[in-house]
């Protein structure tokens, strides 16, 4: 992508020193979406944890999941609370559920017209938004409706 949905200046995501979320952040740099799964039970979890919440075992595995989902909920933000967003109009935040990955949920922006009607239940696909000029570089997982107006 040549341009990001929101302007630069927002906090840059980095893995914590412990490295818990590093596989996710490294994965999205290469346009691979990874979440955690319990190897014994197949139960998914997100955000990352040190332990499988269903069996209390520490053998959590990272697995690639299809970068698509459905809109579970949303908000359209009109009142900015960060200087980088001062001159930005409304923007849309969506909560996306991944039905094929144990219904884990992720949060991102819905690309396209910020004043578009947002439909709960609408299918969406991920768009990997690379911020290569940031220090350090990072990638955000954005979403666009499938077959919708967003591009």
């Amino acid at each position, binding site marked *: 992508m040549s341009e990001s949905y929101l302007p630069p200046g927002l906090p840059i995501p980095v893995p914590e020193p412990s490295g818990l979320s590093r596989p996710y952040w490294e994965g999205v740099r290469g346009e691979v979406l990874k979440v955690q799964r319990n190897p014994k039970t197949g139960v998914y979890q997100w955000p990352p944890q040190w332990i499988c919440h269903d069996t209390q075992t520490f053998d959590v595995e990272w697995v690639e999941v299809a970068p698509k989902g459905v809109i579970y909920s949303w908000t359209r933000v009109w009142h900015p609370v960060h200087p980088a967003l001062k001159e*930005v109009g409304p923007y849309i935040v969506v909560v996306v559920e991944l039905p094929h990955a144990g219904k884990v949920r992720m949060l991102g922006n819905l690309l396209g017209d910020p004043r578009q009607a947002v439909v709960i239940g609408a299918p969406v696909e991920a768009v990997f938004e690379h911020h290569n000029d940031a220090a350090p570089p990072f990638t955000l997982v954005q979403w666009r409706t499938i077959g919708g107006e967003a591009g």
Partner: protein
Amino acid sequence: MTRRSLRGRVAAAGVGETAYYRHGQAPEPEFVLCLKAILAACEDAGIDPRDIDGFASYSNDRNDPPSLATALGTHQLRFSNMQWGGGGGGGAGAMANAAAAIAGGLADCVVVYRALAQGQFGRFGQGSRANTITGDSALTNPYGQMSPAQYYAPKAMRFMHEHDIGQEALRAIAMASYHHAQANPRAVMYGRPLTEQGYDESRWITEPFHLYDCCMENDGAAAIILVSAERARDLKQTPAFVLGAAIGAGYRVHSTQAGFATPDLASSHFKTVARHMYEMAEVGPTDVDVVQCYENFTGGVLMSLVEHGFFAPEEAMDFLKLENLIAPTGKLPLNTSGGNLAECYMHGLELQIEAVRQLRGQSTSQVAGAKVSLAVAGPMVTPVSTIIFGSEAVL
């Protein structure tokens, strides 16, 4: 084995607050505000401040018990307690912790307090200024999702979607607070009534929250003195007895920042907590005469009232009409001091005080003969908390 319960064993004996100010307008340091609120509560109860032997607060209040005990010259310190969890979710929890300490013999006279002078520190409603960010916040802040209103809006949005609830329900909640504030000279919004048109025309903060769906940010301090039921009966005010209280959340309720991942997203997280509170109190929602319900955002009040059993989600549009929510005639008078929206954002401790005043007959929007008074602390966070008070007649 005796039944483990707080019911009837502890009472609120004194309440006090400073003047309430607009954000950044406090003329004194936050610590001084805190001391003055505590002294006002002691005066109200008719006790010597030096007899306070316990302190309880929440939301990482900056005024620590050793500093307060030293400043006030209390004879001894026996209980110092901080309820985990940010936001106003711990307001009733701090009351419950104080009551548990008294019932369990750890202390005799505990003050629950909250002081805020955000102009002297940081504001809640502002985003992080950090250059880099880690953990749960890294999954939200880079998308412009970084304030409480933004974190909680999708919860209310999903609930309203699932149950076909319109903006009018949120408007009625906002208008009830503003209505009651017009009778309360302490209220920051005293003399500033809100009309339906004023609500409808107000700007969006983040959908589904208009400006008037969001709490204020204020300066001031508030305090409540708790003692044993026996001692409260000998003091000068009519006791407000603790009937029941509960703290917590349901299954895997994530941090505010990772709240999008909570399995039960469209919830205020009182489903388990309200049940425990009612069980201890031995009363149910139909027994409640008046409700103070923390408005961080009106959508949280909507879900809290449902999860406290006052109406089903499908009944929300019929129930949440202004005439049902105002004292003295409404069937469920709500936020009768003006609450966080219009009295003062004292992180919900002003709601606890109002619940006590209703049982004393001292509210500026009094519910005649109120005997059971509910005070719900900040919804949608974790842990949340809730407490219910009763008059002598209920014990």
